[in-house]
């Protein structure tokens, strides 16, 4: 089927299946799934600038559903999400401006591809190291009768996290839902970096923000997943509007992808209740690697499958 806005010819069933898979991942890991969606669209011959903008639009719809489900399970820290949205929007605008500059210079596909490979591989390597070390150190995860206690989360990166939390840079923000008190600037900086990657590589940048919330801010994994999704709704909406104005959004592709994501997100959210934090993080590892592999394949072959 021909999509006139991005001038791409794509089977809508392929888009719905991709949306479904990304929906499961999003509901489970609290990520937008752009490390899969971006490369998957690129694989179908969509230019990177369209892949980035369209993916953001699709993520808005999917995250609304998943965040609503997580809120019902008590996995959303609204205060943290709203503060982070401010930093993310600033970062997303900087990222979108970088994309525009690369588009003008004609190097957008190459540069974004190389950055994506480095970022995706780096995140996967770090999370593999951390989650394995955590699982080895704490053999028996904390459990309460009838399920897993989401407030009890452990990380091998814990000492670094506690040092960051001890930085008393005014104003300090108390986040009772997440059980932490931390400087506003640390939250804004984490959000800004996430936003920068969101605007530059597409998606909600949950692949950066979810690990950052766990390792830098010290938010329990289950809450990081839900809060990240809530924050993504706000920041991805802003990203969609700014990219649409710049001519980088094919909303028809996003609408078709989203039909599959709705069902997938519901499955993913329910699945989080059966896993501990380190196991969720360990299961996260292959995802950025799949994204990196698709980008490498596209770079090497120079055309779609």
């Amino acid at each position, binding site marked *: *089927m021909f999509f*006139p*806005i991005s001038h791409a010819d794509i089977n*809508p069933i392929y888009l*719905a299946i991709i949306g479904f898979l990304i929906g499961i991942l999003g509901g489970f890991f609290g990520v937008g799934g752009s490390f899969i969606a971006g490369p998957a669209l690129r694989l179908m011959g969509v230019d990177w600038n369209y892949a980035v903008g369209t993916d953001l*639009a*699709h993520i*808005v*719809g*999917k995250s*609304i*559903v998943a965040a*609503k489900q997580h809120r019902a399970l008590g996995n959303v820290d609204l205060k943290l999400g709203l503060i982070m949205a401010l930093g993310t929007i600033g970062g997303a605008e900087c990222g979108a401006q970088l994309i525009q500059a690369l588009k003008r210079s004609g190097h957008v596909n190459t540069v974004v591809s190389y950055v994506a490979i480095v970022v995706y591989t780096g995140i996967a390597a770090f999370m593999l190291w951390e989650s394995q070390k955590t699982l080895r150190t704490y053999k028996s995860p904390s459990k309460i009768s009838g399920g897993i206690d989401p407030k009890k989360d452990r990380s091998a990166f814990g000492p670094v996290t506690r040092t960051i939390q001890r930085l008393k840079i005014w104003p300090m923000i108390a986040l009772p839902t997440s059980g932490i008190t931390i400087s506003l600037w640390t939250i804004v900086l984490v959000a800004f970096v996430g936003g920068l990657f969101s605007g530059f590589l597409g998606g909600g940048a949950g692949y950066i923000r979810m690990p950052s919330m766990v390792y830098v801010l010290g938010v329990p994994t289950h809450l990081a997943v839900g809060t990240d999704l809530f924050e993504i709704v706000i920041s991805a*909406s802003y990203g*969609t*509007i*700014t990219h*649409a*104005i710049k*001519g980088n*959004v094919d*909303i*028809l592709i*996003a*609408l*078709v992808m*989203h*039909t*599959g994501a*709705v*069902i997938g997100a*519901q499955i993913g959210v329910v699945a989080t209740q059966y896993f501990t934090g380190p196991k969720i993080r360990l299961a996260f590892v292959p995802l950025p690697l799949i994204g990196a592999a698709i980008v490498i394949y596209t770079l090497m072959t120079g055309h779609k499958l």
Partner: protein
Amino acid sequence: MRAFAVELAVYAVLVTCYFFLVLHLLGEWLYRLETQHRYIYAGVAILLIAGQAVVLDAVTTLLFRLLRGRWR
């Protein structure tokens, strides 16, 4: 599991009908909007995706409730 499989099948039929409605009725109009009125297109795009999310979430929740009630 059975209720979910039926939900998936009913949902697939609904979505297929929706594909044709959206792609055929909105396609040409959205294309013209994107090329001629970018700001309006941006607003319409966000409203469409958010609206679709709310509606489809309501549809799947309703479907699941109906089917779960039937098979209980």
